[in-house]
């Protein structure tokens, strides 16, 4: 879950990291007022959940409050990589002598955090790593044992930084490591971390991602920052159909009928589980089918959950039929899903045998499940028909 820059900075401020004077503006008047309070030149930055703001023209400099107000109006409508601007951060413009880069993320292969540091900040770190590898250090550290500042010191010194700069940078980078661990972050980045002409350091921009699974552990911090539980911060905002899908899943704790994602096709998919859904979605597309949605059922959902999901998908405009497919199931019961899906069709006013293009869920309780399907005349198959073939049978009925 990505934080906006102003939220990242609020967290940094709590931890005593050096930041310039700034204020968040939600109107041109506010931008003008904040700029006047700061006094002198300011920078206005779109608060948006995406990089590439500068390129998109969503960062502007102003010498006077009136200019700041005008820039506010320019910045707000700009979409950055499709993401909307939430507010504008007005910040004091500081004369920078040198820019540094510090970031901590997880190394999935080494299974521990890695601190990446460079004395060539402000630009794309991948590019620096390629062209000037001696200016980038990568330092792995334990997430189990207590960490101490020497890890940060070694990482910084490894890029050739010494003297006063090393001693001033060490506590800032060490604090970033502590923040990373304290809040279950998946990314804690400062870029650039600027050295000013007078030798002081200031965090100019920050990027924080918190692991979605850890939100429950950090409710207080999220509340303090004003991040509500309804904010998913996905790559794109949830559609009303997807929000309804989440409601279906949340209405009942038994099993999963979740991660409903909207597409614009005519074949509704009631598919599962995690890996099976990916496999089946690919299969439908490979056959030239047009999925109306993606979803994942699993963990033995109740009859009512399968029913509600079916109704939701059938209610989506443009959906002509549904395909009910999973890999061989272990803990999900075939008969329960069959019952739920058939009920869903009937309650949606459709005939199950017309609207279910194929039912391919083999596995636990399949005998009972197939009996129910046969009774309603639904086209079903067992494991002797592959997932790919089943998807093909469904797609063939759409033509």
């Amino acid at each position, binding site marked *: 879950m990505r934080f906006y820059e102003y939220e990242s900075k609020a967290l940094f401020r709590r931890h005593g990291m050096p930041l310039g004077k700034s204020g968040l503006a939600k109107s041109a008047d506010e931008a003008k007022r904040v700029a006047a309070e700061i006094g002198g030149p300011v920078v206005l930055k779109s608060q948006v959940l995406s990089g590439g703001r500068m390129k998109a023209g969503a960062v502007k400099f102003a010498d006077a409050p009136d200019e700041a107000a005008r820039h506010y109006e320019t910045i707000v409508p700009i979409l950055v990589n499709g993401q909307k601007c939430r507010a504008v951060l007005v910040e004091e413009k500081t004369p920078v002598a040198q820019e540094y880069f510090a970031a901590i993320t997880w190394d999935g*292969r080494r299974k521990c955090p890695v601190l990446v540091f460079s004395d060539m900040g402000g630009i794309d770190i991948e590019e620096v790593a390629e062209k000037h590898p001696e200016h980038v250090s990568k330092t792995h550290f334990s997430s189990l044992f207590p960490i101490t500042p020497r890890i940060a010191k070694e990482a910084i010194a490894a890029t050739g930084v010494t003297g006063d700069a090393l001693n001033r940078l060490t506590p800032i980078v060490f604090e970033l490591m502590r923040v990373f*661990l304290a809040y279950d972050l998946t990314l804690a980045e400062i870029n650039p971390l600027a050295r000013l002409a007078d030798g002081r350091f200031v965090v100019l921009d920050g990027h924080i991602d918190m692991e979605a699974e850890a939100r429950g*552990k950090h409710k207080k911090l999220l509340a303090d920052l004003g991040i509500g539980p309804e904010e998913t911060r996905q790559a794109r905002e949830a559609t009303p159909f997807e929000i309804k899908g989440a409601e279906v899943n949340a209405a009942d704790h038994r099993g999963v009928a979740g991660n409903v994602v909207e597409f614009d096709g005519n074949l509704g998919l009631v598919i599962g589980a995690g*890996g099976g859904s990916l496999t089946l979605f690919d299969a439908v*597309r490979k056959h030239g089918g047009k999925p109306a949605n993606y979803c994942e059922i699993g963990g033995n959902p109740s009859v009512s959950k399968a029913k509600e999901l079916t109704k939701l998908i059938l209610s989506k405009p443009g959906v002509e039929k549904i395909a009910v497919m999973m890999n061989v199931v*272990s*803990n999900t019961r075939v008969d329960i899903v069959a019952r739920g899906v058939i009920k869903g069709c009937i309650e949606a006013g459709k005939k199950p045998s017309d609207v279910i293009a194929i039912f391919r869920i083999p*596995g*636990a309780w399949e005998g009972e499940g197939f009996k129910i399907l046969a009774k309603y005349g639904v086209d079903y198959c067992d494991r002797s028909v*592959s997932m790919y073939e089943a998807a093909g049978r469904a797609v063939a009925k759409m033509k």
Partner: protein
Amino acid sequence: MSILVDKNTTFLVQGITGREAVNLTRECLDYGSKVVGGVTPGRAGRDIYGVPVYDCVRDVVAKHGPVHGSIISVPPGFVRDAAFEAIENGIRLIVIVTENIPRQEVAQMVELAALRGTRIIGPNCLGLITPGECKMGGIGGPAANTRQAYSRGPIGIMSRSGGMTTEIASTLTAAGLGQSTAVSIGGDAIIGTTYAELMPLFEADPETKAIAIYSEPGGRMEAELAEWVVAHRSRLPIVAFMAGRFMDEMQGMRFGHAGTIVEGKEDTTAAKIERMEKAGISVAERIEQIPELIRKRLAEAR
């Protein structure tokens, strides 16, 4: 032979009185696995299908030792402590079923496990099975279903999806290719044991003649496997199935498992397929092609 578990493997279940744990205990017992004890704090003295329940792992080890493994099926907030308890009581194989564990806690468990010589499978997995000998976890479901899908033979399976482990096994079994050991390795961004980390075990197992894997977008696990295969000149032909090809164009969206997200080019199925094929791994377009591809590779190896 097999890897990790066989007919002599004993294990306990932590969180044994939970709904899911009760089910998997029943399934494992029915399959013939040696479930020697269970742990739920405050529930000592009970039993689950005849399996005695204790307050601490220490008690299970003291009364029923040696205990080789533990299945952890407790709520996410309790998993790390449960794993630490198992590790510090000498358990050397842990299967973590629970999902939604923050990766920092997974990393901490993995770090302690490495120090103590314990192997962790999962989290967010269905466990592992050596057909006919030991089923450790929900893999395959009820014993009768498990027997239908899994049969004994020369193919090792490793899969990021629990359900697809069984789909692949079922397909192999129908084609007359049995399995040595099948491992559901888990779908999270950080897991206890990756493909590459299981390879030395399969490599050393004389029964295993080929490997089938199920993989997805996200992470560097396939790249790690490709590097391992080349560096160690593996004797084992590998056939991989890659799901989630549609995700290549959907950067930043999470589908399937927690670790399944395309954040950069390296995460895409296209990049992974290219790396694996370069390392001599055959990539199947469809699950049903796996048996024929394995047969072809085995014939070439001869």
